C-alpha cells in the first residue's frame, strides 16, 4: 500500500499532472463556454491524488511545516472548489423599482447538485437607482437603492452597485449593465377587477432603438404591442445620468393595427377591457451568485501562501550562500529525483546568515584581477578578488 502511495506521490507524476493541467487550461483559453470542464477537472483530480499521496509519504513535504501547510492548503483549495461547484447557484433576475425580490423571479438558473440555500428567505425591495455615463456613453458608477430587513426585521436602506454587493442569506446580488425602463400598467377587464402589473422593456440604453414588447391581457387572445418612446436626456457628447425620475415617455399601444399614444395616467379602451398607463419606472438586472465556500477558499489560499513564504524564508535564510558551502551542498545534490529529504548543509545558522553578505551583498573589486588569468568563472579567483 505504502509502495503504491509512494509511486503515486512521485514528482514525475506531479509533472505529468501539471503538463495535463497546462494542456487542459490551453484548451480552455479564450473559449471556456464551449470546452467541457472535464479538461481541467480530470488533471486537477489526478493532481489532488498525487498531492495527497505526496503529503502522506514525502518527507520533504511532511517534515517541513511551511511546505506541508502550502500543499495541504493546495489540496484544500481543490476540494473546496469542487464543493463550491456542487453547492453553487448562478442566476439572473430583473426587479422593477418598488417591487420585492422573490425566488420566483429567477432567470437562467444554474445550480450544483447539492445546492440547498435559503433563497426563499431572501427578501429586499428595489428602490430607485442611477447610472452615470461619461461622454461617449461609457458606463460609470451605478447607485442602486434597496430596502433590506435588518436583524430586528426593520427595513433599512442600502446603496449597492458595481463592486458594492448586496449579500442576503449568503446570496450575493450584483448590479449589471442589464437594466431598463418598465411600464406600470393597470388592466381592467370588462366587468372585472383591475389588475396592476409591469411590462419590462429591453435593456437601456443598449437597445435604445428597440424599446418594444408584447403583452396578452389575461382572459383574452389578443396580442397588444407596446413601443416606448423615451426621453431620458441621453446624449453622446456629454456626461449623462440615467434616472427614472428625470425621464418621461410616451407609450404607443398597437392593437389590431390601431395605434394609440398614452402619456402617464392615460387609459385606452381595448377589446375586452381598459388599459391604463399608470407610471414609467425602471427595472434593474442583477446577477445572483451563491457559493458557501468562497470565504474558506480565501482563508485557505492565504494560509497556503503564508506557509510557502515561511518555507522560502527559512530556505533563503538558512542555506549557505558562500562559494565553498555551495560547492559542498552541490556534492550532496542527487541527479535523480530525491527519495529522501535534503539534509540542511548548515549546522550553524547564525554563521551562515552572516555569510550571506559575502557573496552577493559585498561589492566585488576586480582591480587586481587579470582577465586572461581567469578561467571562466573560477571560484577561487572571485574569492581572491574580494576586498
Amino acid at each position, binding site marked *: 500500500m505504502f509502495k503504491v502511495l509512494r509511486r503515486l506521490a512521485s514528482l514525475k507524476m506531479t509533472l505529468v499532472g501539471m503538463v495535463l493541467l497546462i494542456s487542459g487550461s490551453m484548451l480552455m483559453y479564450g473559449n471556456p463556454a464551449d470546452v467541457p470542464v472535464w479538461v481541467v477537472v480530470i488533471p486537477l483530480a489526478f493532481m489532488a491524488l498525487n498531492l495527497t499521496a505526496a503529503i502522506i509519504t514525502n518527507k520533504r513535504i511532511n517534515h517541513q511545516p511551511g511546505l506541508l501547510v502550502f500543499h495541504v492548503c493546495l489540496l484544500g483549495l481543490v476540494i473546496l472548489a469542487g464543493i463550491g461547484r456542487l453547492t453553487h447557484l448562478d442566476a439572473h433576475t430583473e426587479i422593477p423599482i418598488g417591487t420585492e425580490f422573490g425566488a420566483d423571479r429567477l432567470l437562467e438558473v444554474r445550480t450544483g447538485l447539492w445546492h440547498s440555500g435559503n433563497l426563499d428567505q431572501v427578501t429586499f425591495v428595489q428602490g430607485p437607482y442611477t447610472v452615470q455615463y461619461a461622454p461617449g456613453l461609457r458606463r460609470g458608477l451605478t447607485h442602486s437603492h434597496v430596502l433590506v430587513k435588518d436583524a430586528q426585521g426593520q427595513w433599512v436602506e442600502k446603496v449597492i452597485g458595481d463592486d458594492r454587493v448586496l449579500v442576503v442569506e449568503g446570496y450575493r446580488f450584483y448590479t449589471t449593465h442589464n437594466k431598463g425602463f418598465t411600464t406600470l400598467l393597470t388592466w381592467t377587464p370588462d366587468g372585472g377587477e383591475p389588475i396592476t402589473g409591469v411590462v419590462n422593456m429591453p435593456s437601456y440604453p443598449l437597445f435604445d432603438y428597440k424599446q418594444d414588447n408584447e403583452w396578452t391581457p389575461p382572459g383574452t387572445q389578443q396580442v397588444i404591442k407596446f413601443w416606448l418612446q423615451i426621453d431620458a436626456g441621453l446624449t453622446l457628447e456629454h456626461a449623462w445620468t440615467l434616472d427614472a425620475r428625470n425621464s418621461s415617455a410616451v407609450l404607443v399601444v398597437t392593437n389590431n393595427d390601431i395605434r394609440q399614444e398614452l402619456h402617464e395616467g392615460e387609459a385606452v379602451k381595448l377589446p375586452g377591457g381598459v388599459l391604463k398607463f399608470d407610471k414609467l419606472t425602471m427595472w434593474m438586472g442583477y446577477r445572483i451568485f451563491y457559493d458557501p465556500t468562497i470565504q474558506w477558499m480565501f482563508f485557505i489560499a492565504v494560509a497556503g501562501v503564508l506557509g510557502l513564504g515561511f518555507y522560502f524564508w527559512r530556505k533563503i535564510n538558512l542555506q549557505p550562500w558562500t562559494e565553498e558551502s555551495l560547492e559542498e551542498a552541490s556534492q550532496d545534490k542527487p541527479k535523480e529525483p530525491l527519495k529522501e529529504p535534503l539534509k540542511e548543509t548548515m549546522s550553524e545558522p547564525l554563521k551562515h546568515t552572516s555569510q550571506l553578505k559575502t557573496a*552577493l551583498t559585498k561589492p566585488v573589486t576586480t582591480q587586481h584581477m587579470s582577465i586572461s588569468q581567469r578561467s571562466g568563472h573560477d571560484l577561487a579567483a572571485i574569492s581572491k578578488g574580494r576586498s
Partner: protein
Amino acid sequence: MTSGIVAEIPWLWAGLSAYMVATLVSMWGVSPRFAGMPIIQHKTHEYIVLGCLAIGVVLLATAIGARWMRIGHGPWISLFELLMSQLCSLGLIFALLYWRLPGMRPSAVIVLPVMWILGSWVLTLEPTASHFPATYYNVWKWSHVGLGKIFLALLLAGVGLAGVMIARTTKLGQNWFRSMPSDMVVDRLAWRFMMLALVFDSLMLIAGAVWAQDAWGRYWAWDSLETSAFLTWLFLAIGLHVRLTYKVPHWLSGLLIIGIFCMAFATYFGAPYISPSAHKGMV
C-alpha cells in the same frame, strides 16, 4: 506620435532617456575593453547606473502623475498606461535590488535592454485618454496590481541572472560577467527570486480573485487573462519543482527562467489586449 504633445510625453521621454544612459553605462562597465579605467575599477560607474535608474523612476512617476491629472485616473486601463506604469515599477524594484545586491549589478546589461522592449513599445502607442470603469474603484485592485508588479520585477531580476548564466557559456559572456560570483551562486540567487516570485504571484492571484468576486460576481471564470495567469503560475511551479529536485545545468536553468518570464510577459502585455474576453472585455 500623431496626437500632439500631451502632459506626460516629455516626462516619459526624459525617464526613458535616463534608463538609456543607465543601460549604456552598465554596458560600458562590463566591457573588458574598459576594465582598466579607474572609474570602472572603483565601481563608480555602478553609482552612475543606480543614479540614472533612480532619476528614470522619478521621471516616469512624474509622467504617470501628469497623465493622472490630465485624464482623471491612474495607469490601469490602456496598454500605454500599463507599459508606462510597469517601466516605473520595474525600474524601482530593480534599482533597489541593484543597490542592495552589488554582486548582481553586472546583470543590468541584460535586465535594462529587456526593459527597453517596453520602452520602445510605449513610444509607438497613442497616449489617448482611457475610460475608467466602475468596477475599477475596488480597493483590491491596488493590492492585485501592486503584487503583480513585484512578481514581474522579481522575474525580471531572475532573467538578468539567467542571462548571465547563459552568456557565460561563451567566451565573451565569461569576460563580460567576470566580476560576478560563480554560476552556482548566480543560479541559486536567480531561483530565490523565482521562489519569491511564486509567493507574490500566488498573492496576486488571490487578490485578483477577491476583486473579480466583488466586481463581476465570480472569483474565477477562465477568461483569457485568468487562464494565462494560471499558466504562468503553473510554469513557475514546474520550474521550481524541476530546479529543486533535479541537477539542472546552469544554462538550462537560465532557459527555464527565461521561459517562465516569457509566459508572464505574454500574460501581462498580450492576453489583455488581444482577446476581447479578457479583463478588458469585463470592464
